[in-house]
């Protein structure tokens, strides 16, 4: 094991050490963006393979936003492929289509109501998953992936001002949905 093969191994090992600790973060964003486990898994794998290819040009500073930006590109390609046929979303199967019937406008007594009062993770996940893009993305990057505004701006490819306005709007939507699900109006 000398020469190129060795270098290749060394490079792969360095990549592994740097990138694999963020696998849960990458998978989480993929789950929320694609809302389908199989697609999310494929996207995450593709993201890591792409990241490895570009690892030589990686100059930091932070690995997590870099990986998430790659994942986002992979997901956008997947959206383009899906074109207009939105595949069933396993977080919110009860909805016909997310754009027509936003979940947060329907205060309904449901088992969810109870769960949400207990701040059940699944309920909050469902509410987040029901947000339309790009508001879902900005909430996940901020609250789940724990990125700074500057990092979110980098990942989403928008100015920090856009991140701020999207986040404000996303939280307002989420709050309405939250209140609706709890059965009390704001």
């Amino acid at each position, binding site marked *: 094991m000398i020469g190129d093969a060795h270098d*290749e191994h060394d490079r792969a090992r360095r990549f592994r050490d740097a990138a694999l600790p963020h*696998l849960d*973060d990458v998978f989480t964003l993929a789950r929320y963006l694609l809302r389908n486990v199989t697609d999310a898994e494929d996207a995450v794998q593709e993201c890591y393979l792409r990241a490895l290819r570009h690892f030589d040009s990686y100059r930091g500073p932070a690995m997590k936003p870099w990986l998430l930006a790659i994942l986002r*590109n992979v997901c956008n390609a997947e959206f383009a492929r899906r074109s207009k046929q939105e595949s069933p979303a396993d977080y919110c199967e009860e909805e016909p289509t997310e754009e027509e019937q936003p979940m947060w406008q329907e205060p309904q007594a449901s088992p969810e109501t109870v769960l949400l009062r207990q701040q059940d993770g699944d309920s909050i996940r469902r509410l987040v998953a029901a947000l339309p893009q790009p508001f879902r993305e900005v909430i996940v990057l901020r609250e789940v992936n724990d990125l700074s505004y500057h990092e979110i701006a980098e990942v989403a490819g928008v100015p920090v001002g856009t991140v701020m306005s999207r986040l404000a709007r996303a939280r307002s939507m989420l709050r309405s949905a939250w209140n609706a699900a709890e059965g009390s109006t704001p």
Partner: protein
Amino acid sequence: MNCAESAILLHALLDGELDAGHARDVEAHVAACPACAEKLKAFRAMREAMAETNLKQAAPAHLRSRIEAALPLPPSRVTAPSRFFQPSRRTFFGGFAVGTALSAALAASLVLTVVRNDQEQTIANEVVSAHIRSLQPGHLTDVETSDQHTVKPWFNGKLDVAPPVIDLTAQGFTLIGGRLDYIDGEPVASIVYRYRKHVINLFVAQRLGARHAGAKSETIQGYNVRHWSQEGLDFWAVSDVAADELDEFDQKIAAALGPGPAS
């Protein structure tokens, strides 16, 4: 600050993304505006509830092993076609961008001055804190002398750079000593000058803040701060002297450093 600005900025406040001055502005508005106070309270509660809940999804074990198995392969094998491969800039939900255009424009106009430029702002605040600390009795200098040839060697072995120590007494800026300080967790040299009754701290380090062309001035907590880079070093001058006097100080230091070898 009005309610429309506050509606956006209170999120930056919750996320700890506002600089100290604007955080105070938002807090002042919220204190005087019950509607915004209510919003802040509700969003804070929501944020805390989300923080207490684990919203992250652990990657399935089989995915982890799949990726691990794929990683050591050389790039030629890795580029096997995948349906995800084709990148696209097309936005699937383009329509939503229009709805936020207005608030985006508002936020964009605010953000230039509002959101801290992480590292740079942290350092600016820290040099001001260090300056204020130095003004406490007995904190100004570790080595007290107006002789530059005493100050300079004093730093030997304390820093990884030899900071230039320039005597500007003839120009009105009296060298009064040097001090070792810590900014952003790193040791830095502080060369202390007196100008009339005012103290000027000149912090010098190999790398302290973002490099930009020319000098950058700002005012923090009433102190004037001037940052410039020269000869591979970063300089931060902090003082309560007037901004134009600090400019003059900067120019004199820069001129002394620039053409000839620094003493």
